[in-house]
């Protein structure tokens, strides 16, 4: 099973984000470096949820916001390692919608269940495969780096 390495502060921040936006889904971007095929998260950026029509069970990040986040990441020598979002009162498992809308092969998708306003389980899934036609989510182990001093970036919007 692959591993997603993430600093404690960033892990806690993405969970806190889900609590803040409850009962709506939160979303954000994870930035990092690929080391021997595994992502090491160095930073995270909160993103806006465009799905204001159905924010309790849908999220979408504006592509233009992603363009800017990627540009900023490249300036820092980082890559987009993955994304996070929350499932209000719903398991931290990828849904058919999550799968249908997943296109960042090789990246991690981190999902947090927020139950009654409190962050519960957080899981990570790597989008594996060589192409859209054979993509699949594979569960990942989340390894929290307690020693890292990395912190989330300011919100991008």
């Amino acid at each position, binding site marked *: 099973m692959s591993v997603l390495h993430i600093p404690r502060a960033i892990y806690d921040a993405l969970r806190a984000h889900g609590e803040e936006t409850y009962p709506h889904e939160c979303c954000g971007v994870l930035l990092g470096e690929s080391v021997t095929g595994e992502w090491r998260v160095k930073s995270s950026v909160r993103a806006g949820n465009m*799905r204001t029509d159905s924010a309790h069970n849908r999220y979408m990040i504006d*592509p233009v916001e992603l363009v800017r986040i990627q540009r900023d990441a*490249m300036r820092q020598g980082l*890559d987009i390692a993955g994304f996070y979002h929350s499932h209000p009162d719903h398991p931290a498992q990828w*849904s058919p*919608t999550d799968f249908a809308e997943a*296109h960042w092969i090789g*990246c991690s998708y981190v999902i947090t269940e927020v139950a009654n306003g409190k962050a519960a389980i957080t899981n990570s899934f790597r989008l594996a495969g060589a192409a859209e036609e054979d993509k699949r989510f594979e569960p990942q182990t989340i390894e929290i780096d307690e020693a890292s001093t990395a912190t989330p970036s300011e919100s991008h919007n």
Partner: protein
Amino acid sequence: MTIIIPTPLRQFVDGQSKIEVSAPTVKGALDALTLDRPELRKHLFNAEGKVRAFVNLYLNDEDIRYLPQKEDSVVLESDTLTIIPSIAGGC
């Protein structure tokens, strides 16, 4: 011009995050990018030769879907074309 390659597509360009091409239009830039990279082309275009719906193309900060000339938009050497797959989902 510079084409920014997103993480999922770097496996088709030897891991590079950006590629320099010379072309007069967005379409020309994509053709130059995929000329010798058929696998990359399959990821960007459907069987009808149209850009896949989940592939967003930004010429600098503009979505080419909303430019008057779309893929036929003229580009400058100093321009940047960013390929950004969509990100969405939900429970």
